[in-house]
């Protein structure tokens, strides 16, 4: 394959056959299989239970299952489209334009990710309806009260607002390093801005965009908190109803198996859309030149960012603040949550590290050594991502008790479950990072007699690190707010912030729940700020 000339930023794609289909080294294959073990656990259990229970639908008529599939599909599609559009826009505005205070906006565009969907949904309910905090404001200015936010549009808004930062976080690093020279050349040759975007920018974004869209779609399948609180019927809600209302857990697990099939359809469809594009850019550390905005464009851009921030961050934060204030004014004591914060942070760190470690070999197998079986490794990871966390937690509970009792109720099994639940977040980021590493660099290093491991350490890993850091941050935040599996698997007494919020909210002690939720928001914002404002090296 041709080595890009010194001034070049983008490799010619001619060498892709040679790169994409090299035989997988045995040690890498072993690491890849090891990395996928946590993701296999829940699916294997679902298959066993499905067979054992004789595939009963738990008295739920087939017609109802179809209705659920349709309502779930509609929400998934609408959420994915909206979140992808919003996240791409915020990423582009904050990385490529001369927007005032863009680091601040970049941070604000990612913070909504730290809001657990059940907390967000709770604040949507708390804002609307007759007694709602927002209703009081609209009523005071003569607009009347808002109707209760419920149903499809409420669930769509909640899942979009608190998930679009996935797209922002995955797309922004790509935009930051994309080949500006090519864009300028296209503009210089007379291409319109729109044409340039379609022919130069979009193809480079496609892998990141499609990974992000898949994250959103499958998360929507797995979400329980938002749809349940906002009264919208989905598959996952039906699964929880079966679990909560029964002593026999097999119907809930059987329905989860049906959900995996639904997820596989989406995963395979995404694979088709993504195609086989492999792009390698060499990022040079040269800062991209920001695109100047006209006064009108600036007003529009700031208006858009303000609106999104107000809805995704301002609304939940102010409703939570209102609840804390209301409780405090009734003399309700607010307990400290320092220990819970440290525990959540520890779990987040361990899980983020383990997930990135698992994602790395899988990224190499699926990008540098693509084959039929590597595709299945990816499919397994993504299918598990679509499962309700309750099902994943149950699977690890059963496996730990029966096969590895030493790990039961320890951080080991908890972290393994986190890896299973969030691997695609790390994998998507690692794959995107690796796609943008020029294989010629690695080959040159190998050609000079440097070992594969040293090449990885000195060349590939440093180039991937900004993308990996973004992936680690996403996993960290997901773990901070994870609840159902944490409840089942944590060491006894290992209460995290999410557990504290649930514990108070389930007793309708809103003041205490809100105080803990505000701490979660504040604490999670710190790593995000560091990550987002760090310049690429």
């Amino acid at each position, binding site marked *: 394959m041709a080595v890009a000339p010194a001034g070049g930023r983008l490799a010619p794609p001619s060498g892709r056959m040679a790169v994409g289909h090299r035989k997988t080294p045995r040690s890498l294959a072993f690491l890849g299989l090891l990395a996928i073990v946590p993701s296999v656990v829940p699916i294997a259990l679902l298959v066993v239970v499905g067979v054992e229970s004789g595939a009963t639908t738990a008295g739920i008529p087939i017609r109802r299952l179809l209705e659920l599939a349709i309502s779930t599909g509609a929400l998934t599609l609408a959420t994915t489209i909206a979140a992808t559009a919003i996240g791409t826009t915020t990423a582009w505005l904050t990385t490529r334009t001369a927007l005032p205070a863009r680091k601040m906006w970049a941070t604000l565009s990612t913070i909504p990710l730290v809001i657990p969907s059940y907390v967000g949904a709770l604040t949507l309910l708390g804002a609307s309806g007759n007694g709602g905090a927002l209703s009081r404001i609209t009523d005071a200015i003569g607009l009347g009260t808002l109707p209760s936010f419920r149903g499809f549009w409420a669930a769509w808004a909640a899942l979009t607002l608190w998930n679009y930062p996935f797209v922002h976080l995955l797309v922004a690093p790509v935009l930051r390093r994309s080949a500006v020279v090519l864009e300028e050349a296209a503009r210089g040759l007379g291409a319109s801005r729109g044409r340039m975007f379609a022919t130069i920018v979009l193809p480079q974004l496609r892998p990141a965009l499609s990974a992000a869209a898949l994250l959103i779609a499958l998360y929507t399948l797995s979400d329980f908190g938002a749809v349940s609180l906002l009264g919208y019927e989905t598959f996952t809600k039906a699964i929880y109803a*079966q679990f909560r209302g029964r002593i026999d857990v097999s119907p809930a697990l059987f329905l989860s198996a049906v959900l995996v099939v639904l997820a596989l359809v989406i995963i395979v469809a995404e694979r088709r859309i993504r195609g086989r594009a492999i792009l390698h850019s060499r990022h040079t550390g040269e800062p991209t030149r920001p695109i100047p905005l006209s006064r009108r464009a600036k007003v529009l851009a700031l208006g858009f960012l303000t609106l999104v921030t107000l809805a995704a961050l301002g609304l939940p934060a102010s409703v939570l603040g209102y609840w804390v204030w209301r409780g405090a004014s009734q003399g309700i004591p607010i307990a400290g949550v320092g*220990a819970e914060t440290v525990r959540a942070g520890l779990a987040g760190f361990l899980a983020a590290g383990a997930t990135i470690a698992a994602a790395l070999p899988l990224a190499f197998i699926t990008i540098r050594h693509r084959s039929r079986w590597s595709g299945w490794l990816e499919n397994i990871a993504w299918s598990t991502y679509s499962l309700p966390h309750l099902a994943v937690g149950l699977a690890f509970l059963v496996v730990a*008790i029966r096969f590895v009792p030493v790990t039961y109720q320890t951080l080991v099994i908890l972290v393994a479950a986190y890896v299973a639940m969030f691997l695609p977040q790390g994998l998507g980021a690692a794959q995107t990072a690796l796609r943008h590493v020029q294989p010629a660099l690695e080959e040159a290093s190998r050609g000079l007699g440097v070992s594969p491991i040293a090449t990885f350490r000195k060349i590939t890993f440093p180039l991937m690190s900004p993308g990996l850091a973004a992936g680690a941050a996403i996993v960290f935040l997901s773990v901070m707010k994870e609840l159902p599996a944490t409840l089942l698997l944590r060491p006894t007494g290992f209460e995290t912030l999410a557990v504290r919020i649930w514990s108070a909210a389930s007793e309708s002690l809103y003041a205490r729940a809100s105080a803990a939720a505000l701490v979660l928001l504040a604490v999670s914002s710190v790593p995000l700020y560091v990550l987002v404002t760090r310049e690429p090296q």
Partner: protein
Amino acid sequence: MKKVIPLILALAVAATACGGSGAPEDLSGGSLVLYSGRSEELVAPLIERFETETGISVEVRYAGSGELATTLLQEGEGSPADVFWSQDPAFAGAVALAGMFEPLPDEILDRVPDRFSDSQGRWVGVTARARVFVYNPEAAPAPPTDIWALTDPEWSGKIGVAPTNGSFVAFVSGMVLAEGEDRTLQWLQGIAANDPVIYDGNSPIVAATDAGDIAGGLVNHYYLLRLANEQGSVTAVNYSFPSGDPGSLVMVSGAGMLSTATNRDEARRFIDFLVSDEIQAFFLSEIFEYPLVEGAGTPEGQTPLAELPSLDIDLSDLATTVDRATELIAEAGLT
């Protein structure tokens, strides 16, 4: 990477130091592992009091009662738990039916009227929560006469239900025991046809009722009292259905000792503590539930327990109808 490792170590040390209830220092009084379906917010002060009074350290695992019952059934004989305290009679019943509880001594069982405990003494009732109809007098001048009246067109589109919530399922399980499957399904279908507003839990129903978004709903009694405590005052009112009506099911939270318990004396002492006068008074004043020990009082503004209609059922039997109740709820299209 080099910076991250010390940070993780520091966090690990800090987390161990913050172990809280997870790793209390060794007290001479022994220790106890409690699986609590009651939330930490409610019972932590009580656990602290027990630890101070007895010197026994309690390691508590908090989660939903359903999660804990499932966990116990999976753990089987290897369970580390000594005591299971369930929020709900059905899940205490499930563990009892699996033969995992050891019958409690009479000194403990005699503290509480028989109808609030397992008929074979495998778990004892600790507190009771009453199902009520919460309504807003400004939106609905009079409450319904009985639970069947809620299927009348008068209530169409006006009431809130939380069909997948544990308490609702427990109430339907009781209805199956008391009225039979056909009548229960008929009622559920009547409710489903009456365009109810579906909620996730009791608490949003109470909030929506108090705000006037809906006229009323089927809930547990104490949510209104807690809302009043947090908000200062409320408009909504709790109403108990008249005698024999399954809509006024009394649901108890119950505690039992695992037959595989290793800390048996401590476990008995803890359960005994739960039904002591002192702690029964705590339940009344702090979490607004009905104490079960006679003469311990009644939550403010509520019908006394003795006057509440009792369904003629063994509470552990709720475990045998809960799965069927969930199926009927789904069949009626209420999930």
